[in-house]
């Protein structure tokens, strides 16, 4: 967005004005180096906080949900990684899809995904969520959750052992570190 549009600012409506002004501010911050300086301080702190307090959604679909429950139990203890399962999608970071997705569930799952606020990640756990799994010829199973939701981490297994699930989440933590989101939550 360019400053040359400034005289026309009076004629813009609310939405256009918001877009134009945030574009201008973004360019100014980048060009003057303020964004880089702020990011240098905040990226380590923000990304440490994001990756050590992953709040998954309390959502179990099928067999892999029992392994998810076992992972949060005493022997495998997911809480030492900072996981706290939340029941409301508005308070979650991660949508953990663990089980086969049917055509009846697909619109509801998409709605849950859209109700989660940014930043959010999706983890596909188990063969059924990755690609339909053993139900390759079913008329009611969606062949993979990545056909309608963008997935960040795939955890293979049928069902994956709880250690495999925790390993997948450690990979998610590495991914969050590599994404390097700072105060501005974008690159």
């Amino acid at each position, binding site marked *: 967005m360019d400053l040359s549009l400034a005289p026309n600012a009076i004629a813009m409506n609310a939405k256009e004005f918001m877009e134009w002004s945030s574009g201008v501010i973004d360019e100014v911050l980048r060009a003057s180096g303020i964004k880089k300086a702020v990011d240098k301080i905040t990226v380590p702190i923000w990304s440490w906080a994001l990756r050590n307090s992953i709040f998954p959604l309390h959502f179990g679909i099928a067999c892999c949900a029992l392994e998810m429950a076992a992972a949060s139990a005493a022997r495998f203890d997911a809480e030492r990684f900072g996981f706290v399962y939340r029941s409301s999608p508005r308070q979650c970071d991660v949508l953990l899809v663990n089980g086969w997705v049917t055509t009846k569930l697909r619109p509801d799952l998409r709605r849950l995904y859209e109700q989660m606020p940014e930043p959010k990640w999706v983890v596909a756990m188990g063969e059924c969520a990755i690609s339909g799994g053993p139900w390759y010829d079913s008329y*009611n199973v969606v062949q993979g959750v990545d056909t309608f939701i963008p997935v960040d981490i795939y955890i293979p297994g049928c069902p994956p052992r709880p250690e495999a699930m925790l390993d997948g989440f450690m990979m998610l933590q590495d991914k969050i570190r590599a994404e390097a989101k700072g105060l501005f939550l974008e690159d």
Partner: protein
Amino acid sequence: MQGEMPTVGLSEEAVVEAIKKSFTDGVTVGVVGPRRISARVARSVVYKLCEHLKSALSFEHVSCLSGVDKVDHMEVVYHISSYANECVIEITVDVPSDDPEVDSITPLWGGANWHERETHELFGIRFKNHPKLERLLLPFDYEYFPFRKEFKLRGR
């Protein structure tokens, strides 16, 4: 009934004899093993036979109700069990494909309710006098009867 052991009743042969005495045609019945009776019944007689089983021969529990698509006709298979007599009767009813309709046994045993709904949804067999014959498992706007043999899955 509460807190009591149900009284041990008739043996399988006695049950078969009682059925044969009350229903002379439309019913072919016989013992096929310990605690197992098998019957082939015409669809006009099914409801009366089930009424008799429930009231006179103490068959209290419907275990299962399924449909079968044998391409030129369909079948409905009932498994009704008796706790008092300790046996299970398997009733097979032939149903023509162009008029797939049978009397519902839900008025007798509530346990058949969802089984009949599911059979209707997957095969298209209608059950007369069923309280609520609607879609149960599949999405409400699904148009096909998936378990019929003409519905092919991918991979076949």
